[in-house]
């Protein structure tokens, strides 16, 4: 595969359709950040070990640094930029803000997306399920207390 090779893909990101030519060797993360300027998704390890780049692809949580953009043709992608609705934070985002889940914030987009996936698949997670579900997402600032609290709380919110 030549570094010049490009592939046309059509993806839906945060409910907007994009038709883009992507380099065959570029990851979804590179395309999101560098080509589409959706910089909310973060790059830290770049090797699938930290979760900072987590997005939802067809409803599944994915490390966007590990998948090739070229494979995303036809995919439905949700990134951190897509959670807010009409200027309103999602309940999960609000819980992160209120419960002290955010310090420097660099892990936050990936953490929120991993938690979003968790709550979609397990609407009322136990603490153990939360810790399991977020164990692939590293945070160096918070000690995870606020994050676990926030997800617990957001899980409870969706009860009603």
């Amino acid at each position: 595969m030549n570094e010049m090779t490009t592939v046309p893909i059509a993806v839906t990101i945060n409910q907007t359709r994009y038709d883009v030519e992507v380099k065959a060797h570029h990851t979804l993360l590179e395309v999101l950040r560098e080509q589409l300027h959706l910089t909310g998704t973060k790059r830290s390890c770049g090797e699938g070990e930290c979760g900072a780049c987590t997005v939802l692809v067809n409803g599944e949580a994915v490390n966007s640094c590990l998948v090739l953009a070229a494979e995303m043709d036809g995919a439905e992608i949700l990134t951190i930029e897509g959670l807010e609705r009409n200027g309103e934070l999602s309940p999960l985002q609000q819980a992160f803000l209120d419960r002290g889940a955010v310090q420097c914030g660099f892990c936050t987009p990936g953490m929120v997306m991993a938690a979003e996936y968790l709550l979609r698949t397990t609407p009322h997670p136990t603490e153990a399920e939360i810790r399991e579900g977020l164990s692939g997402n590293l945070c160096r600032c918070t000690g995870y207390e606020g994050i676990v609290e926030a997800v617990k709380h957001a899980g409870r919110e969706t009860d009603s």
Partner: protein
Amino acid sequence: MSYSVIGSSVNRVGGRDRVTGRQVYSADVSVAGTLHAKLVRVPCARARIVSIDKTGALGVPGVRMVFSGEDLEPPYFRYGPVFADKPIIAIGETKYDGDPVAVVVAETVDAAEAGARAVEVQYEELPAVVTIDQALDPGMPLVQDPDTRGDSPFRDTNTLKEWRFGWGDVETASADLVIENEYSFPMISQFAMEPFAFTAAPDHDVMTIYTSIQIPTKMQKTIADLLGKPLSKVRVVAPDPGGAFGGKQHPKFEPVLAYIAEKLQRPVRLELTLAESFYAVRRTSARVRVRSGFTRDGKVAFHDVNADWLIGAYADITPRIVEKGSYAGGGPYVIPAVRILSRALLSHTTPPSAFRGFGVPQMNLAIESQLDIAAKKLNIDPMEMRLRNIPRKGQNFLPDDPACDGHWDQVIARAAENIGWNTPKESNRGRGMALGIKMSATTAASYSVVRLHADGSATLLCGTSDMGQGARTVYAQIVSEELGVPIERIHVVMGDTSTVPFDLQTTASRSTVYMGRAVYAASQDVKRQLQEASSQGSDSNEEILKSLFGKVSGEIIGVGTARAEKRDGHPLGGHTAFYELVCTAVEIEVDRETGGVTIHKLVTAGDVGKALNPQHVHMQDDGAAVMGIGHALMEHLIYDERGRLRNAGALDYRIPTTKDTPGKMVSVFVENEDGPGPYGAKGCAESGLLAIGTAIANAVADATGVRIRELPLTPETIWSALQEAGDRS
């Protein structure tokens, strides 16, 4: 005192941008027309660079420059916060694994990477100094050329510098019990989730550096010196760092990028991965040998300390780390005789820099373990032992320094009651406690401007870096408290040296105290101007602003300053603003089959003076606690015998995850409003990390009867120690 917003847990200012992905970090900055850089490295610690063939790289489409040491001419520019010892790129010889030999600059990242692969470096690997013993061995090569070390008495050795502190006479001090041990503290990675990313962008005669940094003003000075520009023509834009922990205090690759950008008159950008960031900075490791004397009634009679600190190929801020960490190395105790000899030893490893705690945890492991060992031998409860030795408020314990500035007995009591120190515990469990103390800022220069706009909203300008500690929030609370402006109508501007006034640095848990005071003073300045205007008949802010600016608009500008000058002759150059004091207590269990440690409960108790935002204080404590668990149980950088770093990156270097946190984590604090900061605040960003490794080591000893004198306490280390102890008995 009762306040309106001070002391309440208002939400993080900037938090909304962080949960929506809008927050701009240094890697998110994009400057039009930017070139991309990639570093070329050789896979060993130390090498003589024989030749660099750039032809192949220059033939890659899009490559604009391949820069290396040969492109520079003597005298070489060197930089560093204490000694100017680091060239902008390796000259003739690499000095540590990861030391770049060339920089490839191209139109795209892909081209830069292809170019970097095409650079052909001929090198000859040379023997490297990787351990403390090698650094002390006169037969080993010198890390730094003696000719670059001026008139240092150590110029012909690998000792960078030596410090001697103390008082009393350890030789004649009488003691009923003397114990001597050696402790070792590993190299650790700061591991900020945000890897380094830099852009240098020339525009006419101004050079702008975008970088995630704790000390923008020092960066500005370094770049100005490099390029021969006045400070006014160097602009440093520091987006809020994505975690820093000390690792982002001092320049990394900004100088080489600025040099190249100036040459090409194009912006140049370099983004590192997390793994690459491991080669840019680390924490200083140390080997500490202590002989301690105790009286029968549990008083510390003396400590005689010899500490060797393994620094890297360049000094960075390590001389200050060793100096400050050693100075109060005896801990927060009244001790008749202390003698400390510390040496900073150069090696062919990544140059360490600051890391939360700044030299304290290394000494803490030794001193606080000694206390526990003595307590056991003397049959005194370890908490009681500490209570017998701490100073009372107002009592002197360091001869040249301010007296004890808090009720430290209350801190110990809070920790004890929360861990249940005096309650029965399950037989397989152990409890451990350790105190930690850190000298804070010894000098300061913080300036702040508050602009009260005609509509009653306010803009605050200040040069602190908000790297997650929440400085923006606390400052907004101060302005809100003093001027009655709601938090959401306050905008806090930071991190652009062309906009915000000077600040010395965001380090040493100083910002709430020093910049906080400057912000408070600036708010008072605005208040005074409002009051002056109000004597003309109006009283509410709105009315005064309307009377002043109703016809021709305008604003009130308040200026505030907080300074602490150098004290000549003082060993640290100044008095600490306050003591950052912590008591960490843990309850743990050791799996004797695997050596694994389960932390059931962890308590961090601090003396914070006044918690301006209690939630933020808890977050600092919780974050530091889990980071400390990393130090205690799992983290250490591994260099092989050739000086190659073997575990850079998240795959091979484990930090705590959601599954490694304590069963229960509690953060409590003592508030007597007796700090030098606004409303009696003290700093608290580092305390949670100071004593945690020791508290856990003490708890392991309590649970197993086996004392381990090195961190991290990995399952293998504990298991082997248990086996060995079993064999002996």
